[in-house]
């Protein structure tokens, strides 16, 4: 029998399948849809993290007061260039310890560090045209900040060494927080001090959008609990990302010495690199995708068992037909091929519907609030054609594999026995 004839017979069987077979197909549809949409969601999340890593500064190291042995890091935190410290959670002893001028000095001469800047931060009320909002203020070293920041300007300029009562503000501060937009050269009031806005940053889609960056001297004046020569963090920028690890080690040694700590248990500061934050973020994405894919794979497996089950029943139901076909000249191979192609078709139909359902699910994910997992709407969740193709191939393979045993059993039936079957 020729391939075309096999296909014709297999299609015929499929078209005359009972409702039960179509219910079986649903198992595959759901499995494939789940796999396809989860993988594409995971892919796009990872791409997101990737693209953020690319624009991220991977050369900065942040020192923060306080220490816990398991310094955990939050995913997706931006580099510490703006003094965010990569979001490291430190123990509550942070209050007792401060980073000072001395610490900064101790770190200054480490080879591999390009820039270093002590920073202060705090939340203060900002007044603008009669409105008030409490926003986060970062005080940075205006000598070097412009070289260390990774933020891009929308308008105006970055901080310059001679600046004092000026600020560069995040995009949301300028556009959405106050009823009236803040433009370059407008003046806001912080704790009674007039601060002139010199630059507005591009929107980043994170909390830096609602921050204000000022020269540290002015920041110390406006932030109530800030004192001069005391820092909330020290940010160092290395020459390149390969230098991060050796520089971090040396920083640790120098700080232990300068702070007079000889025992690991007494340590009262933490070091975080932006690169390690980025890595752990992407690792977390990966393991989440992996985990979800595992669940989806289980649903595929259940679908496969369903197909096998239906194929067995279908073969039993067709015993007499198989006997007839054998009597009129069908070889074992003919029967095997007809049933294998039939189950491959079941897989194909299920796979096609699954890919379609998966695409639909993928396209409505963002509307279901999955965007929470994503940082900004830079790239939509896109189903790649390769993934669709893989989904189909997997479905067909599952169909064939789960149909193989029933088909083999059908092909081995003795015609005399099969014909007697009622």
């Amino acid at each position, binding site marked *: 029998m020729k391939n075309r004839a096999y296909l014709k017979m297999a299609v015929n*069987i499929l078209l005359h399948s009972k409702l039960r077979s179509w219910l079986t197909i649903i198992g595959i549809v759901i499995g494939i849809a789940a796999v396809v949409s989860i993988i594409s969601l995971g892919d796009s999340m990872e791409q997101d993290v990737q693209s953020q890593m690319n624009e991220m500064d991977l050369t900065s190291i942040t020192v923060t007061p306080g220490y816990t042995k398991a310094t955990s890091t939050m995913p997706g935190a931006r580099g510490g260039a703006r003094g965010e410290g990569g979001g490291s959670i430190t123990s509550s002893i942070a209050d007792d310890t401060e980073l000072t001028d001395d610490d900064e000095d101790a770190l200054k001469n480490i080879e591999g560090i390009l820039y270093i800047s002590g920073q202060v931060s705090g939340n203060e009320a900002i007044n603008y045209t009669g409105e008030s909002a409490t926003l986060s203020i970062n005080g940075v070293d205006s000598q070097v900040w412009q070289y260390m920041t990774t933020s891009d300007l929308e308008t105006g300029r970055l901080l310059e060494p001679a600046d004092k009562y000026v600020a560069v503000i995040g995009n949301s501060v300028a556009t959405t927080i106050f009823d009236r937009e803040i433009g370059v050269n407008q003046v806001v009031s912080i704790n009674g001090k007039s601060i002139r806005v010199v630059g507005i940053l591009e929107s980043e889609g994170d909390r830096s959008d609602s921050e204000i960056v000022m020269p540290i001297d002015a920041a110390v004046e406006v932030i109530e609990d800030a004192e001069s020569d005391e820092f909330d963090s020290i940010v160092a920028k290395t020459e390149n990302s390969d230098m991060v690890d050796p520089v971090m080690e040396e920083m640790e040694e120098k700080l232990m010495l300068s702070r007079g700590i000889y025992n690991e248990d007494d340590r009262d500061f933490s070091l975080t690199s932006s690169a390690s934050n980025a890595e752990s973020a992407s690792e977390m994405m990966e393991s989440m995708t992996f985990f979800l894919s595992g669940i989806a794979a289980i649903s595929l497996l259940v679908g496969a068992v369903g197909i096998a089950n239906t194929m067995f029943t279908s073969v039993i139901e067709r015993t007499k*037909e198989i*006997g*007839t076909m054998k009597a009129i000249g069908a070889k074992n191979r003919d029967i095997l091929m007809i049933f294998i192609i039939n189950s491959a078709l079941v897989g194909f139909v299920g796979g096609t519907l699954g890919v379609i359902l998966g695409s639909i699910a993928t396209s409505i994910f963002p509307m279901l609030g999955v965007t929470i997992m994503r940082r900004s709407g830079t790239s939509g969740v896109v189903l790649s054609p390769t993934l669709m193709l893989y989904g189909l191939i997997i479905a067909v393979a599952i169909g064939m594999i789960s149909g193989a045993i029933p088909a083999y059993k059908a092909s081995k039936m003795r015609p*005399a026995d099969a014909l007697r079957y009622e």
Partner: protein
Amino acid sequence: MPTIETNPVIKIHDAWKIYQMGEVEFAALKAINLKINEGEFIVILGPSGSGKSTLMNLIGCLDVPSKGIVCLNGENISTMDESELSNIRGKTIGFIFQSFNLLPTLNVLENVLLPLEFQETDPSKARERAKKLLDIVGLADKLHNLPSQLSGGQRQRVAIARSLAVNPQIVLADEPTGNLDTKTGSYILEFLDKLHREEGKTIIIVTHDREPVKYATQVVHIKDGILEKIEHIEKQQ
């Protein structure tokens, strides 16, 4: 009437078919010896449970004997494997069943085409042949009907057309009139008789009904797995 040739198409020598029923062995056929010559019209007659269906399975290469030899055109089928058997069946034997055994999901034309497809006949030739046969059995206007849309007699005519598709040497019919009324049954038997007379086909009918006997050149009586007697009938034409 064609001359009865002496070379046997089917030769069965001391064939036994033994089924294992739990711990008991049951012999469905016991020491069968039978020769069927080309161009004969054989009726294998026996009550139900006589072993006639088992004998039909051996003749039709649907099964092999437990002991003994079954030869088809001089070839011993007893030692053949399933694919060799299916090859022989497909080429030399056309089957007609009591319950027609048409594939319910294929239309009339596709049912008749099926044996030709198993033989990998050229598709256009196969269609031509199938249509011609369906025309002969008077179903040229039902090509695209499903079997369920046909009467019993029509279905059996489709089955006859299917059995003739590969132009087999032997037509083997298992109770072909069993599910039909007398009139339709006669039509089927007349048709087989015509095939026998005009085309010299070897016709073998397995039945419990005496009706086909009047067309037979040889009647084989079987009871309890034993060949009771073989009647040679000289027919006057």
